[in-house]
């Protein structure tokens, strides 16, 4: 039994759920309830519930304060390589895109690390494209050995690995894994992943549980909003996070809520997800899973990010670049080789100042290797 089986059961719940039957009373009951039933999550995500976002927001804010306090943990991504063997229609690293490709040398990684560390950040997320030959596990492990000197916590967002490989990475000092399913809709998944090793839906879907078994402390999942109906994606994301929390109680589970951003290559045919939709999704996740970490990247605008903080966000990126060597090496005037365009370009100091002004403590260190 893996989440693949649970996904199929959840599909049945979704089919049997009639959103038209949801009354205001059932929305209010769902807000107040502590049940983990799929029907409760579906109710919180329903069109009817969107009439009561303020009610949901008040409860979500109160839960978030009690569970996590007035603090936001900060991190920044560090792109090691943008070589990719996949053809994902929503991504700037798509193998068919003619963009400059690069894999950082260990010396370049050290330069990037020293720069990022000088901003005070202690948590780093390393990323690669989906190309094993250009960024093999041995290379990632070497990178981690360099980064350990600068950061107290290292997470990785890389191509899906086997359980044994995840354990190797954890043993090397990586404590967290971020991996997005992109879409829980198997047919859409097959359509947007035109070619490459990432095409294997089930192998991707089961990666978070392999990582949890492989001794990671944190596992962060996500769906790329815009590939398919956001309500459906949010429902399966919530079910996936709940599944992981139940089976791996000693792993901290968190979720990202990324909306598709413009990128190099084809950018069309995606579904619109409004700010209001995004808010309902965050609120529903918080109410459904009070201890779920919620990560908000620089894909969203400064104004929206600030307003989303009290609704349930626990972690934000700061001083981000989605380019390989974007901190110290890449020439920003050159051809665009970023994975996607970021919307919040503020540096770490600016994000810290914003959080303080909003009554939140920016937390730069929340773990250390033991």
């Amino acid at each position, binding site marked *: 039994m893996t989440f693949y089986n649970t996904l199929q059961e959840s599909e049945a719940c979704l089919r049997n759920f009639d959103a038209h039957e949801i009354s205001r009373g059932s929305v209010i009951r769902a807000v107040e309830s502590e049940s983990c039933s799929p029907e409760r999550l579906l109710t919180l995500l329903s069109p009817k519930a969107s009439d009561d976002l303020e009610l949901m927001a008040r409860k979500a804010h109160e839960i978030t304060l*009690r569970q996590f306090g007035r603090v936001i943990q900060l991190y920044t991504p560090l792109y090691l390589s943008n070589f990719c063997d996949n053809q994902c229609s929503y991504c700037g690293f798509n193998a068919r895109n003619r963009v400059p490709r690069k894999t950082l040398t260990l010396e370049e990684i050290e330069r990037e690390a020293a720069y990022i560390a000088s901003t005070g950040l*202690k948590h780093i997320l390393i990323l690669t494209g989906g190309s094993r030959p250009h960024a093999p596990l041995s290379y990632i492990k070497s990178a981690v050995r360099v980064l350990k000197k600068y950061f107290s916590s290292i997470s990785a967002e890389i191509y899906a690995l086997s359980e044994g490989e995840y354990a190797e990475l954890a043993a090397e000092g990586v404590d967290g894994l971020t991996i997005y399913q992109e879409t829980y809709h198997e047919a859409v998944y097959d359509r947007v992943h035109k070619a490459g090793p990432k095409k294997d839906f089930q192998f991707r879907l089961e990666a978070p549980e392999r990582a949890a078994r492989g001794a990671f402390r944190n596992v962060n999942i996500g769906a790329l909003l815009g590939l398919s109906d956001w309500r459906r994606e949010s429902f399966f994301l919530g079910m996936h996070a709940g599944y992981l*929390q139940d089976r791996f109680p000693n792993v901290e589970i968190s979720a990202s809520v990324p909306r598709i951003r413009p990128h190099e290559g084809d950018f069309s045919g995606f579904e619109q997800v409004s700010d209001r939709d995004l808010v309902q999704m965050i609120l529903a996740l918080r109410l459904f899973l009070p*201890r779920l970490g919620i990560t908000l990247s620089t894909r969203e605008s400064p104004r929206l990010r600030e307003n989303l903080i009290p609704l349930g966000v626990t972690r934000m990126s700061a001083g981000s670049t989605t380019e390989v060597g974007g901190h110290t090496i890449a020439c920003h005037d050159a051809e665009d080789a970023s994975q996607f365009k970021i919307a919040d370009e503020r540096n770490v100091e600016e994000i810290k100042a914003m959080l303080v002004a909003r009554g939140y403590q920016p937390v730069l260190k929340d773990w250390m290797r033991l």
Partner: protein
Amino acid sequence: MEDLFRVGGREFQSRLLLGTGKFANYAVMKKAIEESGSDIVTVALRRVDPGSQADNILDFIPPQCTLMTNTSGARDADEAIRIARLAKAGGAGNWIKIEVVQDNKYLLPENLETLKAVEVLVKEGFVVLPYMSPDLSMARRMEDAGAAAVMPLGAPIGSNRGIKTRELVEIMVREIKVPVIVDAGIGSPSQACECMEIGCAAVLVNTAVAISENPVQMASAFRDAVMAGRRAYLSGIPEKGGLSGVASSPLTGFLGDEK
């Protein structure tokens, strides 16, 4: 008569211990600690960043306070032991609150792993205060292993639900010789007062102060509530009278007036 709180071979005035997580900033946290009158504060080592000039939490702990590092984030005895050793090596002293959690949904403590960590760390000379689920036999084992106090939870961390475990904590208060300190779940001063009234030696509060609209004022409210509860306990709280009157047919009436 002075009523000092004796724990770990030392004497303290205050019976309110304060946690330092969840505050909006360290300046407010510092003021809240000062206003609370707390003599013992607990800090998660995971949050300590000695390399940071501006953001080192330890710089905001009033110097007169005893620092009790906690092992937040530890998933087993081994990790808790390592965190304790790191804290000591880093100059954070030898007072340690053991917190071992294998359950990220409710943050409930894992008593068996906690006991293992107590056994090791006491032998290494730490003053050990384990956070635990209120279980009498486990508390006895922790006491036998040399724990300086036991810290049963009142309700899950951050729940603000009060002392939902009252019956079990009262049994611990009666049976355990080291101080019993209620840690976690205390959401309001009246709940802290209740803990003190039933004879707990102290309470540890964090969330209720840190997330209040006015943490400094809330800290003083907890200070007063803990003192009130303690004084009431020392005064001997009369048993509550029942609502029913004297039974019309006394159960021992058949004995007559003979003595």
